[in-house]
């Protein structure tokens, strides 16, 4: 894609808290590769992985309906989010509203009760990574990456919901596979870094169960760290805000439980891109927000 793409941006709740560095780096790099973003007016929570239990399936669908209805008003067919759970819920709800007439009627009745515009499912919902793959292209990232991250070894950890179950896009076709996606390693390479072999690339960190009951999922994260260490990676790169936070904040607990001494930085591909684009390491790459600092990457950043 050489022309500009305009997207309506859904940052998601983590963008104002644990995932601020994802939001900041996405906002920095996307315009650099021709993606213009404007936020969904007054966006709300998507319900994440537990809304259906806490509030019920239809209220969760209605939350997403409100976001989509607000996005629709902005007159742009593309909606983009960098968060795995936001993508899953927004995309899934979009399909439900589009294809299931009974549900669409109910959502619209709920929207009407709040004085919001009805929505019939005609927007296209994209994950930010899918936009990079299908609409920007790796060539454009490589071309813009003037400060190549030479010598940096990166383990690409896609996680689960970024490609599951919606690797199919609203444009038709897929942006990657469920089990063995390449896009993350391709972004790493486009930034001039080395993508090491990382077998558990689509393994789950435990998601929200890791937040509520970490003891049930520490073994999952231990494996992710062990494999990263074996691969010789300097950093782990993941597109998912919950994956990033979980794997970073539980390293102490894992070390305590298993007698290990992990201290592996976990960064977002957009942070790698910001550094490779020669952008500001704090304002654009937000490297100061990683609680396990990616020192090698920080040294490569243009001062």
């Amino acid at each position, binding site marked *: 894609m050489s022309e500009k793409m305009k997207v309506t941006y859904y940052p998601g*709740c983590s963008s104002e808290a644990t995932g*601020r560095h994802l939001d900041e780096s996405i906002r920095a790099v996307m315009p650099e590769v021709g993606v213009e973003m404007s936020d969904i007016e007054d966006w709300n929570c998507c319900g994440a992985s537990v*809304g259906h239990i806490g509030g019920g399936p239809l209220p969760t669908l209605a939350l997403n309906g409100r976001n989509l209805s607000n996005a629709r008003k902005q007159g742009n067919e593309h909606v983009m989010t960098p968060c795995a759970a936001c993508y899953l819920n927004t995309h899934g709800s979009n399909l439900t509203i589009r294809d299931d007439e009974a549900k669409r009627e109910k959502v619209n009745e*709920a929207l009407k009760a709040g004085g*919001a515009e009805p929505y019939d499912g005609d927007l296209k919902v994209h994950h930010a990574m899918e936009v990079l793959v299908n609409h920007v292209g790796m060539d454009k990232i490589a071309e813009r990456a003037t400060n190549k991250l030479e010598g940096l070894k990166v383990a690409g950890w896609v996680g*689960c919901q970024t490609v599951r179950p919606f690797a199919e896009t609203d444009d038709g076709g897929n942006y990657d596979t469920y*089990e063995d996606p390449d896009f993350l390693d391709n972004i790493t390479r486009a930034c001039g870094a080395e993508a090491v072999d990382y077998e558990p690339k689509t393994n789950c960190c435990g998601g929200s169960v890791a937040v509520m009951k970490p003891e049930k999922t520490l073994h999952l994260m231990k494996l992710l760290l062990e494999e990263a260490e074996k691969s010789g990676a300097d950093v782990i790169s993941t597109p998912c805000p919950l994956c990033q936070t979980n794997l970073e904040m539980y390293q102490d607990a894992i070390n305590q439980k298993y007698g290990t001494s992990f201290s592996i930085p976990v960064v977002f591909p957009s942070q790698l891109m910001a550094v490779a684009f020669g952008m500001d390491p704090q304002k654009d790459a937000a490297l100061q927000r990683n609680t396990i600092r990616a020192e090698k990457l920080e040294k490569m950043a243009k001062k």
Partner: protein
Amino acid sequence: MTAAIPESSRTYDLSFARWVRENVKGGDKMNLCMQCGVCAGSCPIGGEMDNGPRKTFMMVRAGMKDEVLSSTTLWNCTSCYRCYVRCPRGIPVTSIIQGLAAVAAKEGYADKEKVANYYFSRAFWWSARTFGKTDERLVTMKYFFSFGLAEGIKRSLANLKIALGMIKAGRMHVGMPHTIRNKSQLKAIVAKAAELEQKG
């Protein structure tokens, strides 16, 4: 794991499978299950589940409503969707497990000792409904204290170091929650949707 062998003392709800089929998202595809077990074998957290998805489906068919809805399987799903994309019959396994969890929550099957997820989800939804956004701090605190004052304090202290690290990195703010502007609109939408769901 011990197999749940049907005993004559059990009560079976023979309308349960039909009910699931008609009311749970993806339930209409459950008939296609051939009990191959790819779902259970793919689950990253199967070790924390009493039955797992494959057996759960068979139990639904058998009408074991109480056992299904009080099962730990529903509450430990991490929503990674591996079973969903691997099912050779194209059954949306994750959606069905989530749908059953929603039913269990609604019908009061959530037991406090067993289902942390229910209390976490309630705290989460409270934030989404009240502020329009997830306030990770308040959700976590509300969740911790849903197990009582002593447990709340204990868990909060255990996570203090993580919280301080997050504050230092600017990833946890101190102050009022972030909120959407049109909270009354969101409340009206959610209330209407809940009412419609109740009606069925």
